[in-house]
Every structure is written in C-alpha cells, then in structure tokens.
C-alpha cells in the first residue's frame, strides 16, 4: 500500500515536493492515492428511504452554498425518466396509465424494482459498459478473409455482458472474467466469452499497438489512470515511472487470441468462440527506451507488476489447464460437429464424389474412435490396437478412393483433349499416367499388413499452463483496499444516471485531473458497492430512490441557484440531457409499435438499422462499420468511448425529418390511431404516447392551428396525422431525458 510519504519521495523527489507543498500533509492523503476506507455516515434523521444517505451527502454540500433541491418531479415526468434511464425505452401509454392508477406509497419503489429486473434493463446498461470496455465487432477486408481489428463472433462477449447484468453478477467477478476467465475457469465456456475484453484489442498489423492498447485501455477502464502516458517516459503528473508501464505490459505479454469451436459448427469462420489465452508464458517484456519498439533494451527484462502507488503486489501463480483448454479440438463437441459436417457433405455430394465423401466420413469416425480411447487412457490396449488398425485401414481406403476419383477425372480430361488433336493431349496423358501411378501405390498400400500407425489429426498445440499473471492482476484489482477500482466503477455508473460524474473526467482519476465534487459520497458509494457484493443493481436502486434523482429537472424560478452553480455540479436540479443514439433509435421503433425484443445473437448488418426493429446494441459496431443513423446521433467511437458527448446538430434534424425510418415510423403510428377520434383526444393520445404527458392548453392550441392549416391545404387526414406525429418525433422532449 502506498501509505507513507517516503515512498513518494523515493519515486520522484520533485513531484513529491510539489505534491507535499500543495497539500501540506502526508502524501498518502493525496487524492486519489488515499487508501480506501469505508465512510460511515448516518442518513438524514427521520428519513428511512434507502436513498437517504446519498441525499445526506448532497444536501450537506448544497447547504454550504445555501441551495436546496428543486421540488419533486411530477409523477409522469419521473416515470418517463426512470424508464428511459433504466431500460432505455419510454413507458407506453398503458404502462403510464397503470402507474398513475397506483396511488400506494410504494408504487415508485416497486416500479424501480420491476425495471431493474426487466431484461431490457440489462440491454440498456450493457451498452453503457460496452462503451467503457470498448466493444468492437471485427473490422477488416475481403468480407472477413482478412481480420484487422477485434475478432469475429465477439458478439458472444456482448451477450455475456447482457446476461451478467441481468443476473446481477458482481463487478469483481465480471472484471476477473474479462481479464482472466481462461485462468479462473478454463473449462467454463460461458465465462470464456468474457475475455472478449482482451480479444477486442487484436490488431493484425501491429502486435506492438495491440499491447499498447491493452495496457492503455485496461488502465483507463478499471483504474481511471493514464498509464499509457508512461510508455515513453515517466508519467508527468502521476507517480507512474516508465518501468511500471512495462511491468503492466508484462502481465499481458504472454496472451494471444484464438477461436474455439462451439457446438454444432465445424467451421470456426462461420461461428466460434473468440477468446484469450496465454500462448507463450515465457516471452520476455523488454524495457523500451523512449517507448521505441525498434530499439528494445534487451538487458532489461521487466517482470510483471502493478503500480506501486496503488499498493498491493502482483503474485502470479501458474495455472494448470485442463485438457479441453489445451486441446480444445479434441473435445467431443468438435468431433460431433465435424462428423455432422462430413455426414452432410456425403449426403449432398454428386454421384461421382459420393464414394469418396462416404469414405471420408467412415475415416473420421474411425479416427475419433481411436482418439476417444486415447482420451480415456486406453492407448496401447488391445481395444486401441484394433481401433488404430481400423483407422489406418480406413485412411488407406480413403487415399485409394481419392486416387480412383483422380484417375476418373484425368481419364475424362484426356479423352476430351484427344477429341481436339493429339498435341493438346500430351499434357493430359502425362497427368493420367501420374494419377494411375498414385492409384497403384494406394492399392499396394491397402494390401499391406495393418499396423497402429494411423495418421493423427494435426492440431494446434496450446500450452498446458497459463502464466496466472492476468488472474493475479484481476485479484489485485478487486481487493477491497484498492483505492481506485470501486471508485472508478461507481463514478461511471453515477455519470450515466446524472449526466456527469462525481469525478468529472470519467477515465482520469490522476492527480492532475479535476477533483471530485463530492469525494465523501464517492467513497461511501464505493464502500456500499463492495459491501453488497459489487452489485450494480444495489447502486441503481440507491440512486433511483434518492430524492436527488426524483427532484424536478426544471430550473425555472431558481435564478439564484443558476447563478451560484450554473453547471449544476451540486445537483440542485435533476440534469436534463440528450438521449444516446441507441435510445433515440430504439424509441423511434418502440413508441410506434415496431420494436423487436429478440435478445442476443450474432451482430446484425449495420445497414439494417433503418429497417429492422431490433435494439440498437445488436447492430455491427466496428471501425467503418457502424450505422450512419446512429453515428449522426454520436454513436460510440470504437477507439474509445469512456464518455458520450451528445451534440445537437443539423444532421440530426435532417435524419429525423427526412430519413426513411422516421417517415416509416410516423406512418406506422398514424395508421394505428383508432378512427374516429376528435382532435383534443388525438393530441392527448399522441402527447401521452410520445412524451408521456398530457398536452398543455397552449400546446393544444398550437396543434389545433396546425391541423386547421393542414386541412385547408390537403384533404388527406391520415397524411396530416403523419405529419403531426413526425413533428412529435422531432420534439425536444422526445430526444431528451428530463
């Protein structure tokens, strides 16, 4: 643990002096290296709501500035907010009606609980974490023949994220499995999906860049530290010497990616499990002076380690791997898939190839019979000898049939050439002779006595041991005393509820970064998080039930507050913000009755995003392969996206006014309106559907005038309604979480 000023002085006297000078106290107290300690705070007296503690911290700061919360938000405004926030979809008119009809005091808390258990909540929040963990589908060339970034089938990692959130798996377990599921649970294929976090960094063109990204982004995501800055020199502002950058790199140096088979598919280019594993536990990490990979200092091999300023140590123990991890292709599921594929091939082959295809299936079965005996330790038993001989016999027969087929083909070619002229038949004749010779050899082989020298499959050999470095790193990260892991995660979660973090730069907790607005609250939440099994759901509940969350977002009539705290850092009103791209698109489908709630599965072509009603997180998201519609609304950058920065720009207006999807959804909604309907009822229905509230008198007047004018211009009543709906799909409130 970094607990004494001495350590810091040893690290870099100049910075230590600077920090000590500024702080004037023990360096260990310097944010954010301060050792982690749970903060005990009593909730506001008399307030028994579970969210009371959060309010106690916030109100303390507000009181210092003579500020207070705004009044509670209207029920339907809060309903819309919590739906959008927790499941990414606005409430339907029916959901609104049923909530407003429930006047019990527990109605809201029960709603929060219901939404937290809704599978759509996991999808919504999965996308948030996919931003932070840099989810990316594969990118490359030639229709997937050249994979340059990430890997195919990485959608299984996305599904793992959704499933883990749905099951409220602890963050400590999630982090561990993303970094080291292959070491924690090497035989657990469901958990192995998590290593997509590492796989995602794959870069065909540069192993160097691949490892740089891994170190840089693992640090940013989990530590909120710019360790990547120390690649070429000691960190300028944080106590991270350059050697520690390479110590962190050494944790990841042995790892590689591969694609394992999944049940039912013999071809891993079609489907498979993209996963990480240690390919070479002994590979050295050299110190690179000035970060220059062309000139490694081969006399300085850096051992794996963790930044000293964060305390603890890395104690890696090698992990012995089970056979299914070392030889994944000898798993029964692979044999079954290969047999199935050979069966299909033999059934579907042309008559001329049928004999060979059938023999291939027979050979495969014979080969697998031998393998199974070997796998159960029966090598060299009489049973095995018999099976091995049978296998060799089948292999010889397969060779013979292949040679026979080749002869037939060569004969046909030769006959065809002879029809032309003698000269062009010279080459085919030569080939025919060769084919016949091969057949003769194969036939001779078939007649030879049988041995056990069958030809085994050539399979990739993976190490029987993993270095254990990544597992040790995960254990170090998720230990209770770690000063950053819980704080960084809690801050990310808070920022996605309230629009900005308690620490403003979500991925920079370094000593030069901006200070937290409520450090004690952050620590209290982090402690609460860890004490409750690192449960995100617990934090969501605390936050959504807080008074801070339930207050109004309207700042009208609070001019003095706006003058004192214009950026609302003290949370004197609930902060409004633009919906994320995915929420804009999802609600466009959802509120017009076109959302398809099918969950999970392979990523969808990004160009289908305008016509398919699947939720936005399921569309391909890779460099240069992202939905244009989502990108216009600031969809995630796959390079890094620790924080969305929603813009408001004319391209978005054009997309919602002119795109086929906006127009089609407006039409769908218009056609669903029950006829006949009088105007005030229509306005009321549409406002409730799209904005979750009744229209005001002024809004009714504006809409009435619109209808009046449109009816003068056109007799097409359905069209007029479409235009009214299109207007509401462009409404500020439709696009805003308030």
């Amino acid at each position, binding site marked *: 643990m970094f607990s004494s000023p001495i350590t810091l002085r040893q690290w870099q006297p100049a910075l230590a002096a600077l920090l000590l000078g500024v702080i004037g106290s023990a360096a260990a107290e310097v944010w954010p290296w301060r050792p982690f300690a749970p903060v005990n705070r009593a909730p506001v007296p008399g307030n028994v709501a579970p969210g009371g503690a959060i309010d106690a911290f916030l109100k303390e700061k507000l009181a210092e500035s003579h500020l207070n919360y705004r009044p509670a938000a209207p029920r339907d405004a809060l309903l819309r907010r919590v739906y959008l926030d927790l499941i990414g979809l606005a409430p339907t008119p029916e959901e609104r009606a049923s909530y407003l009809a429930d006047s019990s005091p527990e109605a809201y808390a029960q709603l929060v609980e219901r939404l937290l258990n809704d599978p759509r909540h996991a999808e919504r929040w999965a996308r948030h974490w996919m931003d932070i963990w840099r989810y990316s589908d594969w990118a490359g060339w030639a229709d997937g023949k050249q994979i340059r970034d990430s890997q195919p089938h990485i959608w299984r990692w996305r599904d793992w994220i959704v499933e883990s959130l749905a099951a409220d798996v602890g963050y400590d377990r999630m982090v561990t499995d993303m970094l080291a599921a292959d070491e924690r649970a090497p035989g657990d294929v469901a958990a192995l999906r998590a290593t997509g976090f590492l796989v995602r960094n794959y870069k065909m063109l540069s192993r160097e860049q691949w490892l740089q990204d891994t170190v840089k982004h693992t640090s940013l995501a989990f530590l909120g530290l710019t360790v990547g800055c120390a690649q070429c020199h000691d960190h300028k502002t944080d106590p991270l010497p350059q050697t520690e950058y390479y110590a962190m790199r050494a944790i990841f140096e042995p790892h590689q990616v591969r694609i394992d088979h999944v049940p039912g598919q013999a071809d891993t280019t079609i489907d498979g499990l993209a996963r990480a594993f240690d390919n070479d536990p002994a590979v050295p990490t050299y110190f690179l002076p000035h970060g220059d990979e*062309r000139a490694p200092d081969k006399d300085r091999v850096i051992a794996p380690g963790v930044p000293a300023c964060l305390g603890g140590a890395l104690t890696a123990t090698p992990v012995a791997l089970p056979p299914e991890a070392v030889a994944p292709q000898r798993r029964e599921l692979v044999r079954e898939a290969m047999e199935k594929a050979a069966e299909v091939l033999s059934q579907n082959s042309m008559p001329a190839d049928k004999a060979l295809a059938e023999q291939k299936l027979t050979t495969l079965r014979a080969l697998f019979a031998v393998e199974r005996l070997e796998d159960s330790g029966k090598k060299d038993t009489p049973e095995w000898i018999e099976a091995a001989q049978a296998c060799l016999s089948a292999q010889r027969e397969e060779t013979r049939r292949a040679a026979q087929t080749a002869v037939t083909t060569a004969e046909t070619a030769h006959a065809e050439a002879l029809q032309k002229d003698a000269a062009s038949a010279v080459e085919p004749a030569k080939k025919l002779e060769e084919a016949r010779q091969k057949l003769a050899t194969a036939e001779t082989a078939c007649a030879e006595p049988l041995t056990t020298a069958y030809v085994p499959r050539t399979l990739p050999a993976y190490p029987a041991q993993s270095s254990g470095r990544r597992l040790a790193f995960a254990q170090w990260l998720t230990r209770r005393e770690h000063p950053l892991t819980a704080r960084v995660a809690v801050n990310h979660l808070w920022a996605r509820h309230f629009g900005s973090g308690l620490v403003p730069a979500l991925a920079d907790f370094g000593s030069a970064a901006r200070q937290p607005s409520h450090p004690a609250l952050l620590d209290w939440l982090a402690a609460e998080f860890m004490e409750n099994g690192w449960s995100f759901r617990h934090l969501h509940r605390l936050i959504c039930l807080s008074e801070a969350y339930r207050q109004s977002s309207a700042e009208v009539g609070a001019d003095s507050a706006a003058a004192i705290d214009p*950026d609302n850092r003290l949370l004197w009103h609930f902060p409004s913000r633009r919906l994320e791209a995915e929420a804009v698109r999802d609600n466009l489908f959802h509120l017009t009755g076109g959302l398809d709630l099918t969950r999970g599965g392979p990523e969808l072509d990004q160009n289908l995003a305008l016509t398919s009603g699947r939720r936005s997180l399921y569309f391909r998201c890779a460099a240069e392969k992202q939905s244009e519609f989502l990108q*216009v609304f600031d969809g995630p950058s796959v390079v890094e996206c620790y924080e969305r920065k929603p813009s408001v*720009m004319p391209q978005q207006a054009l997309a919602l*006014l002119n795109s*086929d999807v906006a127009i089609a959804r407006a039409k769908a909604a218009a056609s669903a309106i029950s006829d006949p309907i009088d105007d005030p009822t229509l306005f009321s229905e549409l406002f409730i559907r799209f904005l979750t509230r009744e229209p005001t008198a002024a*809004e009714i007047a504006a809409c009435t005038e619109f209808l009046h004018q449109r009816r003068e211009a056109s007799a097409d009543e359905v069209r007029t309604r479409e235009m009214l709906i299109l207007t509401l799909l462009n409404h500020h*409130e439709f696009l805003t979480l308030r």
Partner: protein
Amino acid sequence: MNSSRSADSNRCAGVSRRSFLADTGLGFTGLALSAMLARAEQPFDPTHSVWTLPDGNPHFPPKTNSVIWIFLCGGLSHVESFDVKPALNTYTGKSIDETPFADVLKTSEKNIVGGNPAHGNRKVIMPLQTGYKSYGQSGLVVGDWFPHVGSCADDLAVVRSLWTKDNDHGAQLTWHTGRHVREGGLPTIGSWASYGLGSLNANLPEYVVLGTPTGDCCGGAWTHGAGYLGPEHAGVRLSADPAKPMPYLTAGKDGPTRDEQLADLSLLGKLNTLSGIDYPNDRDLRARLKSYELAFQMQTAIPETLQSEKETESTRALYGMDQPHCRDFARLCLTARRLVERGVRFVQIFHGGGGGGAWDAHSGIKDNHSKLAAEVDQPIAGLLKDLKQRGLFSDTTVVCGTEFGRSPGAEGNGRDHHPAGFSAWLAGAGIRGGTAHGATDEIGFHAVEHPHYITDIHATVLHLLGLDSHRLQLPDRQRLAIDHGEVIHQILAG
C-alpha cells in the same frame, strides 16, 4: 483583407460569430435568435483554468477567411512536380551508394516510424519521367505534368522540405491530424478551423468535404473527422452530385414536401419553445432550435451551391469542365469556390481516394502521374485564376498536399513511398507567391534545409485564419509541441 462578402465586413467590424448568426434572419421558430448559441456548450469548471470555449472570434487579425485544402491520395512524386531534381537524370541507373549521395541511406530511418518493410528505400536512381521548366517572374520550376498550375507559379509558395512519420498510406491520416493512423481519429485541421471560428453562413456547414476520401485502410472517415472536438466539427461530406449531396438532406419515400415540412417545423418551433418555458438555461434546447433552422436552410442552400451548371461557359471552361478527362475534378474545384464564396470556412477536396490512393505509382509512374495530373492540373489552376478574378484570392487560401513523396530510386518503372522529404504548396490570402521554401538534398531524399514536420502546414493555416492552436487546445486534451507545429513565416506575405 479585402472582400466583397458582407459577412466578412461584419466580422472585421468586430462582430462575433454568435451575434452575426443571431442577426441572420428570424426563422420559422419565431424566436429571437439572438438568444441562441450556435452550438451546445460543454459545461466546464471555470475555476480550473483560463480556458474558454472559442467564441468564434479569431485570436488576432486574420489574413484569410476560408481554406480550400486539396489532397492528392497515394503520394505525388515530388521530384517530378514541385521539387524537380535534374540530378536524377545525371545519375540514372546508378545505385545511390555509387553517387556522391551515398550518405542519405545511412539516415534513412530518421524520424520515421517503422511501417511496411516491403517499402524499403529503392536504391537504383530512376531518371525524371517528365520534363520541367521555370515559370513566371519568380522562375519557379515545375514539372511538365503540371503546365496549368505552373502558369500560376508566381502565386505559389512551395514548401520543399516536408517529412512525415509513416511510410505507408496511413500517412494520409497523418497529413490531416499530425498523428499516426495507429493512434486513431483525432481532430483534423479542418475541424480545428471549424471549432475555432465557426461559419460565416447560417445556411451551410462550417467544414465541407468533397471527392472520395481516403480508404478505410488509411484513416477513412477520420481524415475529415473531429475526434474529441465532437461531431459538430467534423467535415460534412457532400457529393458534388446535386441529386444526393448528403444523407437525409432530402426527404425519403413519401416524406414531407417542403410545405409540409415548413408547417411541421413551424409547429415544432412553437412546441419546443413551450417545452423550454420551465428550462430557461437548457443549452441543448437552444442548440436544437438553431439546428432545425440550419437543417431547413441546408436543404435548399446545399443543392443551390452545387449548381455549377449556373456558372458561365467561360468559367466552366476555365476549370476544364468542358473536357472529359478533367471534368469530375473541375466540378469539385468549382464547387469549392461556390462554397467559400458563400462563407464555408474549410473545404477539403480529395483526389484519387479509396484504397491506398490513386497516385500510388509503384509501377508505371509515367502513365499514372501523367494521367492523374491531367485530371487535376487545369481544375486547380482554374480555381486559382477564378478566385483571383473574383477578388476572392485575398481572403481564401488554397493548400495542395499529399501524404508523402516518391522515392528517387526505381521500383521497376515506378517509384516507392518516400516520407523523408516531399513537397506541398500554398497559394492565396496571406501567402507570398513565387516562393520556394526549404529544400531536400540534390536527389530529393531528405528534407535538409528548413525541414518541416507536416503540422507546420497546419500551424501556418491556423495562423492565417487568426488562430493560435495552443489557445484552442482543450484543458483535458494536452497536445504535444509537434502536434501544434510551427508557423512557416518565410512563406507568408509581407
């Protein structure tokens, strides 16, 4: 600065961009636009530093209003265009080792990040594949592939001593952001101009991209992106085809007619205004009202701007629009003029985009470069002449660059990538015409005299726009000195 543009005189009178936008007509929303901002502001803690969001005013008096940034994808041979090397004819067929310039190979890796080892330095000198002559009063020497641009020599300031970091086509991105392609999408020079100054026209985007940009291999959309400055500062790609200039610009199937849209937007303006009553400080809402105004205007302003058919025959002929071999690029250049004329801040034109880039003449450089140069030569010269005849040359700066040069040594009958020394030129407002600045060695290998990393071009352009890139830098996005670059004062007009 001398301009016929009304917006310009506004700005010169000290009127900021925001108040300028505010005065640009009241829209269908019926709101006083003076209450609006041009963009949503990011909240920022003012106590942390003295940084403030750019207000649209330059930092010091500008020398230019707009930039036209031409980029030739694939790597133009510097030794046969703007840095002609007769010594290559002298030493034809000799290995560089056997020439007096054997030393250049010893430092061939200087300042260059390793890239594709297949692109080694070609050793056997290849003679010039075209002739050359000197032009104008300045006597500037230009290769014979560019006779039209050559005829504008007295307007050009050629920088002959550029170097870049990447020896593969990722250098296309580097040219625009200053960073290696591996580092991802960072703000491009155009986005800095947009971010710092905004637009002079409320009907058009601030930063427009024409032509086919760089392929995905080499930066793709990042070459006109804005990185962390946010998508509102990214280049808006326009196809020069007036039928479909950009996504969603015109209504899809069964979409609203203009009348219907006007009715919708009129209602939307009212509803959004009502929605804002309880939210007097909602910056997004103000930006949204503004964005719908601009979106509505863009639907007519952009197609109108792209109507190059409206130009006179003689203007069209000046660009070469009457000639099939250069018609397409002529249209882009003419469109660029129409854009800057209407107040667009930064127009980026790509030539030969996609894949590694058309100019990537590993073989057959003579055929390749003579064909491609013919596509761009007259259009570019036409642009310079047209800007001049319209008085726009005094507030528009034209830059013409490429990602790297080509090797003095032969690769078959082509030339290889060459990042150690190459050329680009600038012309127009603020530029000292007829200048050749910096130099490579006698065979065009290394930038030896006044070497400039490519961001020095960025610094020079921002300087002409009245911007200091250090002052634009975001507080949590510290940039390196090499990212900012240094102004090349030697090519600036008196």
